[in-house]
């Protein structure tokens, strides 16, 4: 597929836009529809699109298996880390208002970090599942 000029051109136009859109959805999730899950899926879709056009080895060079597998775990750890930070700073588990002197700013911080954790895990899992299915190879 990498020889097809139409796909290559369309891919080069669309993939950066998809990645930026994923970031937009992630950070704008407070003010419009969006949030971690949608952003993670869109980001994974951008990389899957790249992998479909240029081949799975090219996608694996871009994001090796070790990176993707760490992403899967890192997001969940980040989320739990925010929860425990609330615990250590004096509140209950997953309390956000203790994270800053002003409770509302604390809420903002807490929501920002957990949405980031959600983005990393969801993008990592979707991408890893794609790698597993595409890399299996038919046995017959």
């Amino acid at each position: 597929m990498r020889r097809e000029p139409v796909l290559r051109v369309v891919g080069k136009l669309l993939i950066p836009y998809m990645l930026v859109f994923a970031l937009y959805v992630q950070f704008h999730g407070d003010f419009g529809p969006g949030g971690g899950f949608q952003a993670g899926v869109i980001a994974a879709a951008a990389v899957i699109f790249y992998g479909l056009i240029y081949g799975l080895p090219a996608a694996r060079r871009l994001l090796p298996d070790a990176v993707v597998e760490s992403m899967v775990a890192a997001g969940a750890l980040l989320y739990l880390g925010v929860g425990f930070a609330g615990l250590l700073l004096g509140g209950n588990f997953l309390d956000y208002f203790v994270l800053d002197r002003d409770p509302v700013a604390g809420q903002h911080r807490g929501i920002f970090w957990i949405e980031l954790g959600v983005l990393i895990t969801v993008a990592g899992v979707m991408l890893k599942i794609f790698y597993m299915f595409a890399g299996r190879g038919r046995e017959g």
Partner: protein
Amino acid sequence: MDAFASHYTYWVTVLLMAAGLYIMIARGNLVKKLIGLSIFQTSVYLLYIAPGKLIGGTAPIVSGAFKVYANPLPHVLILTAIVVGIATLALGLAIVVRIREAYGSIEEDEIVAADARDADRA
């Protein structure tokens, strides 16, 4: 007839649910069963979100220009449900791929027959 106009959304949901259920129990191909499962799941999303809509309201993003909002609680539930649904679909498809490699087919009758043959031989 008044009952029809006010409950029409529930009946659409029931129709989709029935279609998903029928695919799951009446078709033998494992991949098609999984697609039936996902249709069933989406009909349940409709069941939860349809009652949340208020005519004349808007999406639940608070701003000064609107007074009436759709109910945000089912949105949260269903967001979680959608993501859990794809995790289920991915795991189900992984199991189907392994079944195919072990039995050589993904039709339910052939798999059951192969198991019965193995049980007879053992």
